[in-house]
């Protein structure tokens, strides 16, 4: 299955990149710098989507004691964190030419930064607890608490930035996005999702091997090699 997924991802990525970098017309305000959108926005979407996935599969693992759900939950964390980091870096790279500074305390960037902290907390907690079953269950609780909090955090940050900044920076306010710009964006988003699945499968396999040392089926696999 992995080769197929990889091929699919590469195809989607190629099309998305071509569409985004070549086909899409330059933005009349931002020029070519808006092309960062094709990594920035999908990465930001993924960062939230993966957190949701982590919490949901964590909850499933917590309630029904399904090992696989626990593994999916914890293996999502580093991938999500890397997407969050990516969204932050690209956001900052986009901000420099647009606003003239590397960092603006804009609502979305700030929320994203806090999300990164939440991810770091999850990863830190998982690594700190020695018994991996307990660890993944603890992490699931934390992720659920985080999910309940994210809307509150997001809302408060939004409110905060409107209070402190005034309506000067409205970078994402584009009421009508050109269809040639939109399609590559969606394709890139799908490509990132497929990437997530691939990375998740790879990580889950490792985690499973690590936990099931001494299991029978592992011996069988080794026998084949």
């Amino acid at each position: 299955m992995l080769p197929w997924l990889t091929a699919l991802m590469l195809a989607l990525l190629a099309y998305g990149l071509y569409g985004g970098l070549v086909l899409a017309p330059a933005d009349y305000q931002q020029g070519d710098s808006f092309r960062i959108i094709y990594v920035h926005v999908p990465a930001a979407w993924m960062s939230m989507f993966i957190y949701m996935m982590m919490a949901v599969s964590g909850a499933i693992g917590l309630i029904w004691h399904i090992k696989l759900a626990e593994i999916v939950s914890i293996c999502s964390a580093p991938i999500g964190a890397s997407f969050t980091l990516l969204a932050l870096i690209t956001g900052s790279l986009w901000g420099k030419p647009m606003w003239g500074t590397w960092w603006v305390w804009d609502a979305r960037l700030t929320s994203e930064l806090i999300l990164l902290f939440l991810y770091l907390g999850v990863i830190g907690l998982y690594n700190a607890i020695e018994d991996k079953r307990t660890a993944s269950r603890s992490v699931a609780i934390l992720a659920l608490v985080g999910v309940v909090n994210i809307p509150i955090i997001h809302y408060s940050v939004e409110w905060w930035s409107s209070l402190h900044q005034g309506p000067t920076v409205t970078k994402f306010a584009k009421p009508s996005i050109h269809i040639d710009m939109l399609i590559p964006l969606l394709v890139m988003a799908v490509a990132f999702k497929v990437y997530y699945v691939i990375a998740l499968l790879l990580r889950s396999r490792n985690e499973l091997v690590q936990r099931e040392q001494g299991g029978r089926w592992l011996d069988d696999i080794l026998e084949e090699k």
Partner: protein
Amino acid sequence: MSEFLHMGGYAFYVWTSYGIAFAIMLFGIIKPLMQHKQQLRQLQLKRKRGLK
């Protein structure tokens, strides 16, 4: 072509973004693969120890 690379004056920002994105994503794939190899090696060594 050089116009494409130039990105209307924003080359540095655009290409750094894509470069970093590519690097991070590649790392996210390669690291688990390496780890997997390492695991298999260690398990095999363990088995050898067990068989002796």
